[in-house]
């Protein structure tokens, strides 16, 4: 005779990730370092944005980078050319970074010298949005050439981000994408989001973004 019974569990599937993310968050706070998590599809321009950003912020602030990539160290090599401490995490097929991967590389940095830690996630508009790494906020990079339907098709990443960066603005006249649709949809999903329109190629809009980011670094220092 078999006896079936039900066991009530109600446990969060991301529990172990979320617990580790809180530990990471405390680590960043203790070291008075603003950590941000940059996400976006492959080819949106995350690494190029990072390179442009570094040109503007490294004079004033101590910056380091964690590079997430599935297999290669190509992005980390690009960042290293800017004389910024960078550590590569290879996920070995994994489609996102998680908080434990980030924790493992934290001892590799000289934290007393850092004000800003930029984590570049694996290129993907889906999975990274669900995984808290312990960052202060998330930034989603979308290039306008990807199409104006992307915010409504991938709403979670826009809902969970504090900033949306619309890149490759210089290419807008060449494609069918409607910038107004793109921005309206982003604001419908997340009315409090900060939107920057930039072109990493021409430099358009980069200054507004880096000035805003610099303010966040200062504010975070004051709070911590």
């Amino acid at each position, binding site marked *: 005779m078999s006896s079936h019974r039900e*066991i009530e569990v109600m446990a969060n599937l991301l529990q172990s990730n979320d617990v580790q993310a809180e530990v990471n968050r405390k680590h960043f706070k203790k070291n008075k370092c603003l950590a941000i998590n940059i996400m976006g599809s492959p080819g949106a321009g995350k690494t190029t944005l990072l390179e442009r950003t570094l040109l503007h912020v490294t004079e004033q602030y101590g910056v380091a980078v964690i590079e997430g990539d599935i297999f290669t160290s190509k992005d980390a090599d690009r960042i290293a050319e800017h004389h910024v401490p960078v550590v590569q995490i290879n996920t070995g097929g994994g489609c996102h970074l998680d908080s434990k991967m980030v924790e493992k590389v934290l001892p590799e940095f000289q934290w007393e010298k850092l004000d800003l830690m930029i984590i570049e996630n694996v290129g993907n508009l889906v999975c990274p949005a669900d995984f808290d790494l312990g960052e202060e906020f998330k930034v989603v990079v979308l290039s306008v050439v990807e199409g104006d339907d992307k915010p409504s098709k991938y709403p979670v990443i826009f809902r969970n981000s504090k900033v949306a960066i619309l890149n490759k603005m210089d290419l807008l006249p060449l494609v069918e994408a409607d910038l107004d649709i793109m921005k309206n949809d982003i604001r419908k999903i997340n009315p409090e989001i900060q939107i920057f329109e930039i072109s990493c190629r021409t430099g358009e809009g980069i200054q507004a973004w880096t000035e805003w980011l610099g303010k966040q670094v200062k504010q975070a220092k004051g709070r911590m």
Partner: protein
Amino acid sequence: MHEISLMSGVFEVIEATLSQLTIKKVTQVKLKIGKLTNAEPDALTFAFEAYSKGTVCEGAELLVEIVPVRGQCKNCGEEFLVQELLFFCPKCKHSGIEVIQGEELLLESLEVE
């Protein structure tokens, strides 16, 4: 395919839950998944079947309940169903909306034998 990572969370929770119990097998696993996550039921089922091979969960039924998104207006307190991810209060049109339901990634219950 981050459903694979989520499934590793499912099995961590199952292991922890069953560690103190003597059971023959798990016959049903119930998940509650918010619409405002990126988890897809078919991919979860696929991942569950792969993960459960050779465990007490092999052959168990996976039930995935999708939880709709509900928001509460930070201005007037109105609670409402968020349709098509429009985060605006239907009553006062305020855009500061707190998500009160729809972000769940939960293992609700297990049925065991």
